[in-house]
């Protein structure tokens, strides 16, 4: 019992590390594709780690099965969503070296000017 709880705490620590890396990366990177990259990779890792942390202390078999299905679907949909957003950004003309502003205000959307 003790071993499972220690393992669960370790997985939670791993998830915290992944989420921290994701947050830092989202603020530090300036290009859209780099931000999508860190959102697709490290966020999946963090979510999977936090699911694993509950998986090792799951009380019943039904909870275990649901968590496995949730983990598989998460692994699938996160990559799919990142791919869709990146493809949409590519089609609307966001370049690989277009840097975004990091300010709190955000830039007002101007359809005539466009990102390029």
């Amino acid at each position, binding site marked *: 019992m003790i071993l499972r709880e220690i393992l669960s705490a370790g997985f939670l620590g791993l998830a915290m590390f992944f989420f921290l890396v994701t947050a830092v990366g989202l603020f530090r990177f300036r290009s859209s594709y780099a931000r999508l990259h860190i959102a697709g990779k490290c966020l999946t890792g963090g979510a999977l780690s936090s699911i694993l942390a509950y998986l090792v202390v799951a009380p019943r078999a039904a909870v275990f099965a649901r968590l496995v*299905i949730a983990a598989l679907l998460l692994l*699938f949909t996160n990559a*799919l969503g990142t791919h869709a957003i990146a*493809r949409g950004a590519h089609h609307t003309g966001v370049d690989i070296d277009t840097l975004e502003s990091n300010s709190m205000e955000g830039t007002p959307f101007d359809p005539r000017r466009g990102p390029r």
Partner: protein
Amino acid sequence: MRRTLALLISGSIVALGVTTLMLTGTLSDAIRPVDYTLRTVRDTGAINAVTAILFDYRALDTLGEATVIFAASSVLAFLAPRSSASMLSVRLSMLILYGIAFLLPFIMVFGFGTIVFGHVSPGGGFTGGVMLSSSVVIFAVVYSVGGQQSYVLPILVKKYVENAAMFVFVSLGFIGLFSGGAYLANALTGIPLGEPGSLLSGGLIPLLNIATGFKVGMGLALIIISLFAE
């Protein structure tokens, strides 16, 4: 000028609220919850007290709520002209098309499961219906590239399903009236309640759950299709 006025008004709202809170204490001190949850299980046979309240004690309110959804979808369908506008101008990649096709059955099964198991676990007709309609959103976004708005169900079929679910709900209420109870009565009409906690329990509650789920799902799907076609 306007910003100053807004700051003044919202600041006075916050100050007034916090002052009232500090003067009167918290709400939980004033109102003591009475424990009637166990009585809910005895009365209706459903172990989820929220579903029991929604579909037994306050079932008439649920009927009115379904009417509100019906009215909203009617008004939106009246506003939208029947044009074949499409959301996207870019063709989606093969990865997304086949990935969503793999993913959609899971979403639908989850929605139907939430509806059917509504009286023994968290969930119910409203939540499951919204999940079903979100699968319609995915259909409309992903598979409506060529201006074809509803890929799986035509709009007319959605309307018929919505009306049929409403009819089933209303006529299930008449069972209680004909057997000597009130409208939408459950246990008073002599329907066997079953063992609490099993799937076949709660008398009329699972049937009303299913009818409400189809009603809410198809109503919200019609609203979404109308917003798309606007």
